[in-house]
């Protein structure tokens, strides 16, 4: 892909770039950082990125929200409702995982007095 192609890509896919930017930042934090709270933050960023990606998959140019709030609204220019429903589910699942991760972090800190994963090595090969 040449420079022109890259610029064209950037212009047309701003949302995708934002979404995958968040996804990669989140993944990078989770892979590299050794502090559990930072890892959980990375997980949160990763999930936000995935949700943004799902919503932007269903977007239609100049589309409106798929709600017939009065009878005169046409169904032609509405965005796809399915990804929005999926994102609702994905957000709730993300909240559940985050809550559980935080509670485990609380317990881990009670046991070890640290959240540094390098120092938490009860289990070995």
């Amino acid at each position, binding site marked *: 892909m040449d420079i022109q192609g890259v610029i064209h890509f950037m212009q047309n896919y701003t949302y995708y770039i934002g979404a995958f930017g968040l996804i990669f930042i989140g993944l990078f934090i989770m892979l590299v950082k050794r502090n559990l709270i930072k890892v959980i933050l990375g997980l949160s960023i*990763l999930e936000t990125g995935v949700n943004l990606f799902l919503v932007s998959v269903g977007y239609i140019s100049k589309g409106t929200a798929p709600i017939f709030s009065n009878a005169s609204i046409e169904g032609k220019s509405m965005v796809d409702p399915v990804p929005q429903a999926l994102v609702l589910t994905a957000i709730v699942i993300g909240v559940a995982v985050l809550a559980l991760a935080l509670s485990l972090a609380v317990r881990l800190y009670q046991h070890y007095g640290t959240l540094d994963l390098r120092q938490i090595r009860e289990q070995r090969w």
Partner: protein
Amino acid sequence: MNDFGLFLNGINPVLFIVVPLGFAFGIPLLGMISKKIVKWVPVFVYSFVLVGALSNIPDVLDKPIIIQIGGFVPPFGINLVAGPVGILFSALIAFAGLMVSIYAVVYIKEGPEVRYHILYLLLLTGAMGVVLTGDIFNLFVFFEILCISSYTLVGYFGNKSGIESAVKYLIQGAIGSSLLLIGIGLLYGLFGTLNMADLARQISSADPVTVFIPMALMITGLGVEAALFPLNAWLPDAHSSAPSSISAILSGIAIEVGLYAVIRILFTIFGISDFIMFFVFLGVLTLLIGEMCAFSQNNIKRMLAYSSIGQIGLMVFAFAIATSHAVAGGLFQMISHTLGKGLLFMAAGYMIIRSGSMKTASFEGMGKRMPLTCVAFTIGAFSIVGLPPFIGFPSKFLIIQSALAKGTVLFTILTGLVLMGTVIEGAYFFRIVQVIYFKKGNGDSERNEAPIAALIPMFLFTAVIIIIGIYPKFVLGILDSAASELLNQIDYIRSVLG
């Protein structure tokens, strides 16, 4: 097709998911009335589900049952596909779930018991949903139920190692689920549908390079739960720190369900019909690494956990060959692993309690102290190794026979490696059996058997292991039609979309 109520000819498979869920939601209310009742709820629920699953077997051998949720025709609504594969797995989940819940009635004595039983029901419900659903996003949702409840149950005792393993498991699992979700999002973007059959129909005419990326993401995401090498770093920790009843379910059900999702996606959605060289090697590698790590362990639960990795490798090897015989062998191996490993973990659970340690050396003289449990353990071990007349023998035999039937030199060499894995497996299991029976224990040698409620499920597992081991024809019928359901993409699409 039009007579869909609570009961079809058998019990409507949607109830396998809904009834356990309903009871799980109701347990907090029941717990306010009486805490004693709560531990019998899973026993009751899974007896019902087991009866239901068995009652559907004659029908699904004929043609798969398609259940529409909410009455919308696929691909516009979510549908359940209870074909031979779905019913086979739901019967297996219900049977193992029933046995382990009987075991847990006496085994789980400390900690937040009411919550244990709720999470146990939900874990199995998640597994049941994954094997029955015909919608890819619905599969993700049930998969998350399975994963999140197992993260919690791994840390159930709340001790140092439990919480640490749960954290590791959660981090790796969460990355896996996110990758899976990205893959699903990409598929939806490409094809505008989430129904598996509809996806399969459209993917066959799509550009293979484009389709490869979502496939790779989904397989990687599911591979974490299915313990494929190198995504299985969490497994030994998690399986060894969980309560033994949960280890039995995690080893026997959770990773199998993960592997089921992988093969369902590969075979049914992406329509891979020829053998997959990458997975053949991955399987053999997983097998050898698992068995070698297991050999070097002196902690019994870690040893069993690593042995599960080895067994998963064997199943991946079988599925990757992708002939109908080999797939049937892989499914058979799943059954025999669930039964064998479930039995081993249950027996080991009480041996650990009685000896007070997970070190294999502390089991010296156990054969005298708890003879029945030790016999169960030995039978489980022999079945996993693949000795006749136990169930492990026909399943391993089927896989090796179908690998040799490929006829190429490469497959002969790979089969040799698989057999070498079996030899290692045999070595460490015989070592344990030798410690149990032929080493004199120091300390008390009084008889101190496991309680009767723990012996009953062990006995039933043993009975099934021996019966199917002697008459493998019992299950071969449903295994063959299950294998053809997995390999026959066109029939699957036709039965769902009409």
